[in-house]
């Protein structure tokens, strides 16, 4: 998976290690072998995505894709989404929201804030695996020639 000839880095912000592992496994199964940088805390993830000063300048010469869980222990995923989409240097980063709830208002809020894809984590694992694999398809779609 490349963008403008560069490897896309997948930033996975997910506090549940089990979920993180399952997501990773399914992404790999879908045939996506990009680097995955995992974070369990929102603050640390923002430090990486926007830089420690949160200016977003680090994104001028790299391509990220963010997998975002909405419920993190230290801050709300909505806040993270808002900050990424609110910064002129990072607002183009595709953000895939992953969450265990399918509250329609929350989904709408995420889309309003600029989320690109919203995936609920179903208890039914096959559905989940399918969704993640579809994400692999999505990854290939966003590859910029």
């Amino acid at each position: 998976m490349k963008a403008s000839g560069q490897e896309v880095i997948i930033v996975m912000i997910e506090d549940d290690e089990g979920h993180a592992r399952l997501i990773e496994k399914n992404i790999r199964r879908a045939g996506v072998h990009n680097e995955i940088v995992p974070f369990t805390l929102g603050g640390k993830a923002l430090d990486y995505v926007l830089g420690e000063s949160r200016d977003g300048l680090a994104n001028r010469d790299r391509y990220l894709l963010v997998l975002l869980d909405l419920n993190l222990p230290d801050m709300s995923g909505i806040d993270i989404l808002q900050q990424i989409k609110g910064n002129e240097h990072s607002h183009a980063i595709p953000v895939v929201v992953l969450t265990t709830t399918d509250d329609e208002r929350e989904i709408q809020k995420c889309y309003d804030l600029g989320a690109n894809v919203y995936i609920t984590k179903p208890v039914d694992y096959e559905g989940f695996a399918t969704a993640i694999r579809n994400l692999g398809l999505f990854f290939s779609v966003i590859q910029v020639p």
Partner: protein
Amino acid sequence: MTSTAAFLRSSLLMLGLGILLLIGIVSYSLWLVQVNREYSDETASLRGVRSAIVGLLATSQDAETGQRGYLLSKDASYLEPYDKAVAQLPARWKALQDTLGPRPDYAVTLDELKLAIDGKMTELSRGVDLTRQGRYDEALTLLSTDAGLRLMDRIREILGGNLERTDDRLSEIVDKQLSAADSLQWVTIGGAIAILVVVGGAILVIFQHVRDLSRTREEVIALNAGLEERVNERTEDLIRANQEIQRFAYIVTHDLRAPLVNIMGFLSELDTSIKAVSTYVMSDERTPTEDEIREARLAVSEDLPEAMGFIRSSTKKMDALINAILKISRDGRRKLQPERIDLKSLIEANAATVHHQLAEQGGEAKIAAGYITSIVSDRFSLEQIFGNLFDNAVKYQMPGRPLKLNVDIRPDGPRRIRIDVRDNGRGIGQQDLERVFELFRRAGEQDQQGEGIGLAHVRSLIRNLGGDVTVESELGKGSTFVLSLPTDLTRVFRSTDQ
């Protein structure tokens, strides 16, 4: 209610008194007028009596004077007054008899008077007859017998007596009339004063009542406004409680679902791994390929233990979550035991449990209180609340800065008390001020152990006590937890029961 009854009673009393007074005055006046009329009638009738007496006396004297003149002058022209008097006499007598007849004290004199007048008239007419016949000497002799004179004196005496009696009676009636007029005057003045007093009293009572009414009306308006405010407050509380329940349900389902996703996912992974293993184990007569052997080994050495580890930890997590929810629910259902508590000493005792940790870093706890620190509430809940808050303050202090804990207790409006728990710890970001009170949610750096239950528990406990907790904070400077409590828990219960 009492005011209206008292007003009704006193105004009815006033009205009754006024009516009685008026009836008294009017009937006394009527009676006095009646009495006066009787006196006037009596006066008129006595004047009739007087004139009848005077008339008879004058007629008798006229008759005598005329007869004497005739006797002396023998001139027939002198007979004219005599004849006239004699002609008038029966009418005069009739008038006297009519007026005196019904009056017993006068009537007794009538017979004697009749006798005297008849005697006198006989004497007079004899004298006239003798003179007419020229028997002058006989006439003079008759005159000189003095019989006529005595009769005349007797007439004068009787009539004079009657006249005097009449005059006495008249002056007596005049006196009575004067005294009746006096009474009427006094009664009228008294009545006027009484009416003024009654009217004044009535005005006073009405004025007081009107004042009471307007005061009551103001109270009702104030109460109404208060009621509206309370209804609004209650509605807000209800809306808030409802939102909290929804939020709670959301959090619980979300957080319970997260480990479930893990369990189902890793069970599926287990399946995949077992397939790899079974391909190898069940290969029977044919030799497994290199790949199959590698996959089976990988499955046994890595995938299977990993999957089981995640399943185990997720199950444990679910159990922990359920226990936490149960704890909050149990504390919420616990029967509160209101008792009189001195807040200051309760907080001091709780602060003492973290004293050691405070002193280690050179920190301190200060507790300031107004003069009201005694409240009626549930001791267990309050101990949990302050215990949690102080533990948090110690846990989330700013590294390298001695912790200063300040507790300030002061009254907060009627029947409420406010407690500020201020620390100089790491603080909470603006966006997380509400989040910290949510179940299983935490804020800021996750460098301390915790499940995100403490403040959710504090909020649920204090709301059960009819209070609330909010937080004001500045990141890096410190936080102030503002607690509000009713001073008497039993009153809150009572108003909730209604």
